């Protein structure tokens, strides 16, 4: 090993090793980029297999030379400690750098540089990159489905209203805090029900009736997720309370209900609602498909929400129960005014997570024929005028979902931090 000692960099020949190392490192990057983009090979005199590995070898040698402990240059030390601690780490770092070089320029060119943004018809899609014109033309359909263009303000207003009312619970003055439970479990569902029935569906007060088959796109995703979540609050709460009760019948029936809905996949639940459920209704009574799907998803999610709320109920100290009981409160008063408001505050991050999972699960409803975003994508993809643009559609849907889910998960993480320090 002593023979190789002269290759080990140390503080004495700092500039020599540093410059050697940098040269090798840059050489490896250039070699790789040339290989990749211009198909030129500066080491073509080597046999083929070695050729493939030369950038890696150069880079390793370069990084090995740069690896000087305690060199005194601050930036170099940080670099070494982070990326260059030993050969294994250096190899991995090189791989990642190569991967970035390999993938970013083509992605950039597809997304932005070669893409078409202007125009309104298929002829505008001339470049080899993405054709965002396709998205622009179909945007309304992706967002609102087949809902008539003139009536789309109704959906916007409904969402704004629901958001305002949901967020209102946070800013409730302390005097009314104890009514938080009642607010969320009774008041909000009733308002949502009226919103769906009168505003979005229409039919009275001079609003045009839009059948549920025409609802679609991202707005349908939100309608289903939002309203399912709001409706499953009361049921989930009942189930959580029932699970923790001492009466055996109630406890075991709640447990059975929860375990049943948690054990089956959502797709079979949707099949059940679309195909099996009509058999269970009396002859002649027919329920709209969207209503059946919302009921099915509500019951499904209620089981998950029940588990989350149960976690919150368990986390409350027994002192609360005892204190409330010593004031003479009965079971319901105790729970509605004392326990549940506190438990709900605790589980809000968990509820946000459940909501996130619900939003990610709603694309499934397209298997029963409701055209939310994934279904609309498929519809647009097979339209004879616009064949061949499936990639843009998928990327667009992925970006939208990613933005929504990422922001929600960030928000719920913030909530979790906030409530952790609260106690």
């Amino acid at each position, binding site marked *: 090993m002593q023979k190789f000692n002269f290759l080990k960099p140390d503080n004495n020949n700092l500039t020599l090793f540093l410059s050697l190392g940098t040269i090798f490192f840059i050489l490896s990057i250039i070699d790789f980029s040339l290989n990749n983009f211009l198909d030129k090979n500066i080491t073509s005199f080597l046999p083929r297999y070695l050729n493939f590995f030369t950038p890696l070898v150069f880079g390793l040698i370069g990084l090995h030379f740069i690896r000087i402990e305690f060199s005194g240059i601050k930036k170099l030390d940080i670099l070494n400690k*982070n*990326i260059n601690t030993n050969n294994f780490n250096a190899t*991995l770092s090189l791989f990642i750098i190569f991967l970035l070089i390999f993938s970013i320029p083509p992605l950039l060119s597809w997304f932005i540089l070669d893409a078409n943004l202007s125009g309104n018809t298929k002829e505008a899609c001339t470049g080899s990159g993405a054709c965002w014109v396709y998205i622009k033309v179909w945007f309304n359909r992706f967002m609102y489905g087949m809902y008539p263009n003139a009536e789309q303000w109704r959906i916007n207003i409904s969402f704004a209203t629901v958001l305002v009312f949901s967020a209102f619970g946070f800013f409730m003055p302390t005097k009314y805090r104890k009514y938080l439970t009642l607010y969320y479990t009774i008041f909000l569902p009733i308002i949502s029900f009226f919103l769906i029935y009168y505003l979005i569906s229409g039919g009275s007060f001079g609003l045009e009736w839009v059948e549920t088959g025409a609802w679609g796109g991202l707005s349908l995703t939100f309608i289903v997720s939002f309203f399912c979540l709001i409706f499953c609050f009361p049921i989930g709460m009942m189930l959580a309370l029932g699970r923790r009760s001492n009466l055996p019948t109630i406890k075991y029936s709640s447990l059975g209900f929860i375990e049943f809905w948690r054990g089956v996949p959502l*797709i079979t639940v949707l099949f059940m609602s679309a195909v099996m459920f009509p058999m269970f209704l*009396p*002859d002649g009574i027919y329920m709209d498909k969207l209503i059946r799907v919302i009921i099915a998803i509500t019951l499904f999610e209620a089981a998950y929400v029940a588990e989350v709320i149960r976690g919150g109920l368990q986390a409350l100290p027994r002192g609360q129960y005892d204190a409330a009981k010593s004031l003479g409160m009965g079971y319901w008063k105790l729970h509605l005014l004392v326990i549940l408001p506190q438990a709900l505050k605790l589980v809000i991050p968990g509820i946000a997570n459940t909501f996130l999972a619900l939003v*990610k699960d709603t*694309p499934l409803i397209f298997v029963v024929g409701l055209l939310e975003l994934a279904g609309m994508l498929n519809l647009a993809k097979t339209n004879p005028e616009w064949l061949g643009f499936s990639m843009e559609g*998928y990327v667009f849907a992925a970006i939208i979902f990613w933005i929504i889910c990422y922001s929600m998960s960030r928000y719920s993480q913030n909530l979790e931090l906030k409530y952790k320090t609260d106690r």
Partner: protein
Amino acid sequence: MKRNKILPQLITIFFIILVFGFFTINAQINMENRGIEFGFGFLKQEASFDIQFSLIEYDGSHSYARAYLVGLLNTLLVAFIGIILSTILGIVVGIARLSPNYLIKKTATFYVEFFRNIPLLLQIFFWYFAALRALPLPQDANLLLGSSFMTIKGLYTPAPLWENFDVFLISLFFSLILIFFVYRYAKKRQEEEGKQLPKFLISLCIFIGIPLLTFFAGGFGLSFTFPELKQLATTSYTYNGGMGIPPELTALTIALTLYTATFIAENVRAGIQGIGKGQKEAAASIGLTTSQILKLVIMPQALRIIIPPTTNQYLNLTKNSSLAAAIAYPDLVLVFAGTAMMQTGRAIEIVAITMATYLSISLAISLFMNWYNKRIAIKEK
């Protein structure tokens, strides 16, 4: 006090009976009106449809019950492969998230955040309809690793052809028993003398060596059939011989693995971070290297935190495999609750059987998890 306890229970029972009774009576009336009968006799009828990919012998002349079995085995196959792959990937990414190497940590974080926030259905669509559809036709396919072909019709790899497969199994079994004894001996030696045996290396040698010896001694034979291009028509080709893995299975496995691995990675990270700093520092102070600390001190304790939510993820993976109904992979939902239901029209029986199957799988996993939790629970004194 007693009345308080009985009345709510009575009301609950009454309510449940009311609801169930309402549904059952309606269902019966409806079925009578339409002339449909309720019964499971249809399971013995001939299925009359073929299934693209099945692990057991099946063609259209077998019964619906056998079609159900084929679907169930396909589901379990995807679940099994998915669980193994996502666990490996999840552990690697989870540990990578905690690496001091800036690039590695950022890459792992990017991977987790990216794949976690896109719905699984969209990912499956992307892999199947966009990525795997862009593969070349069989005649244009490139050779991978010398003998495999990735084509739009599937992944064709050499298939193993065994002679005397049972001899191979016996040798494997024998090597496992030997490994068990090696571990016992190593443990005894460590407790008595404090010396460690390189258990892993020895067991690896045994695991590979003994079957290899049997192979050379002629106990069993292993040969491979290679896929060969066969022309069906002027422009359509396929591969004969070898093993063909349909792109539906590949797309489903890739999507499920990538998606579930993100959750497992988060669990692993939470588990490792949940171990107090004191453990790491104490281990470092007695001179263990980083990888030794990870292997001997952190991981055994972290497993206690990691395993329950990871088992939950396995369950989710099994349930999510039902999304195969959206692409043409013949799993339980597509074969039984799809094709069979459409051909026989018996919606209630078929959906009930399908839900019961998934329920049993999830109950089995929950029971296992409860048993495991009880076993590793820290018994406080």
